[in-house]
């Protein structure tokens, strides 16, 4: 049974996602799914960085840079969206290279704060220059991807498929890296940096690579957001957004690849059930978070593995000890 899930689980979910619009035609639910895709991309890329022991609190900053890159290139210079989408990943990665060179050796809580400062710095710069970054007013009327008739505010199916594709690509990339030797190196950095250093691991280089990786996918998420909502501003890419990414990873479960995905999906969908309660929605969200921190130290995946599926106990350290067998 377990073998079946392991082999066909992911393809089954992907098939379901691609076929879902047959069942789900409401624009509202498509919107929720699209936001979920963005959150999953943010959460998984942040997870890969977290496996090295680095918790970045500035992912919203990279998202903003990616969003701004593609918004300006498409709106002001008229470049096609499909050319800009890889650029929207590469430019934040280059910024991450510059930032990382300086601060990748900083440890723990200080790194957390430095990245938070970076996120705010990005917001500050974009807010200060009205021209060309739009200042506090942001950038409006960002064109949707071509061909325009498939990507309209009234018919979100085009955006939905684009989002699912980006999400699947991101998850595939993160999964492959995490199961390869590079993933093993990342985990080893979290376990014991000094030991890794003493056996020949270039700690700085690998941490920097993880940081670039996370920045790249944050940029992709940012550009998708920009062309979907057609409006970006410094009021969108705040510390709150970086915090959300962090919460998805922690509540979902840091020890497993499925954790951040589950966390992002759950924490995007569950608040929707409480939307009918009106003003109490955020209150209930807060209660859920407190509950999660108190009673689910290993996140949702931890609870699944320890309480719900006892037969999965064997794979408790799955991600950290999973390695492609030759």
């Amino acid at each position, binding site marked *: 049974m377990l073998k079946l899930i392991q082999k066909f689980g992911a393809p089954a979910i992907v098939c379901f996602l691609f076929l879902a619009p047959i069942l789900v035609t409401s624009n509202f639910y498509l919107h929720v799914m699209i936001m979920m895709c963005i959150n999953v991309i943010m959460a998984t890329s942040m997870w890969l960085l977290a496996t090295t022991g680095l918790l970045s609190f500035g992912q919203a900053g990279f998202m903003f840079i990616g969003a701004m890159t593609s918004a300006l290139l498409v709106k002001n210079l008229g470049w096609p969206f499909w050319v800009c989408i890889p650029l929207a990943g590469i430019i934040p990665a280059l910024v991450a290279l510059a930032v990382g060179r300086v601060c990748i050796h900083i440890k723990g809580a200080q790194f957390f704060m430095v990245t938070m400062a970076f996120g705010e710095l990005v917001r500050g710069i974009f807010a200060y220059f009205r021209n060309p970054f739009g200042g506090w007013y942001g950038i409006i009327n960002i064109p949707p991807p071509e061909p325009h008739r498939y990507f309209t505010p009234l018919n979100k199916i085009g955006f939905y498929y684009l989002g699912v594709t980006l999400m699947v690509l991101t998850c595939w*990339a993160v999964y*492959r*890296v995490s199961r*390869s*030797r*590079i993933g*093993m*190196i990342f*985990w*080893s950095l979290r*376990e*014991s940096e*000094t*030991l*890794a*250093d*003493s*056996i*020949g*691991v*270039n*700690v700085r280089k690998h941490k920097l*690579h993880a940081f670039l990786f996370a920045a790249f996918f944050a940029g992709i998420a940012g550009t998708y957001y920009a062309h979907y909502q057609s409006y970006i501003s410094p009021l969108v890419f705040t510390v709150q957004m970086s915090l959300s990414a962090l919460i998805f990873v922690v509540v979902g479960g840091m020890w497993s690849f499925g954790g951040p995905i589950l966390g992002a999906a759950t924490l995007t969908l569950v608040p929707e059930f409480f939307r009918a309660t009106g003003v109490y929605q955020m209150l209930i969200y807060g209660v859920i978070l407190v509950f999660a921190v108190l009673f689910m130290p290993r996140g949702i995946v931890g609870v699944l593995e320890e309480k719900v599926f006892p037969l999965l106990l064997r794979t408790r*350290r799955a991600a*950290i*000890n999973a*390695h*492609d*067998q*030759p």
Partner: protein
Amino acid sequence: MKFLETKGLTKAFGGLVAVDDLNLAVDKGEIVGVIGPNGAGKTTVFNLISGMLPCTRGKTYFNGETITGMSMHQIAERGLARTFQLPRLFGNFTVRRNMLMGLHLSAETGFWKCLFNSSKTKASESKLAARADEILEEVGLGGRKEELAYNLPHGLAKTLQVALSLGCNPALLLLDEPMTGMNMEEVQEMALLIRRLRDSRNVTFIIVEHNVRAVMGLSDRVAVLNFGKKIAEGRPSEIAQNGEVIRAYLGGTDDVA
């Protein structure tokens, strides 16, 4: 120029001089023991040589190269590996995965190759898996491959550390208290392992130990440190009779109340 040589190696933490003007020279294929009372600076010497700490003064030469100021992983690439006094392992990894990590320097780490799991990566990883099993068998951990490293008893944790350091094909191994906390049988096994590695792989050893009898029996030469200074050096038989060494360990007549 000897295989490993330190000239005037000094480390001061503010006013405290942990290592004072150390001149140590080691030939290829030797087993050199470093002994001394607690706090003599022995582990600090290892930290300086392996690049974990920057030295205040002095130089270290290894295999003709100046390795002072290099980072730990650069020194490991050149064939100098070390173990730690308190066993440092990748605790949440299995023993086997620890060993696979130890073989990092022989591994394929190209980003795109790993992303697509190319045939080159597959071939490299299967070779490494075989080598990892081989090394684990050699040190005696063959039966415990799937155990999590933090569950290992102390003696086996130390053995695993030695196995890890073998992964980078070292020409020189710095062992920091490899026999601490072991019973007589385990001490014997460790001593035999060290001898075997020296004979079969031509690995040079510098061993810091408190088990004086074991290290005297194992070493070709012994250096004694006290308060950061080298107070004696020579064959084990000479050291055992050296008055200053005895005074350092047991105190002199003027220390008696």
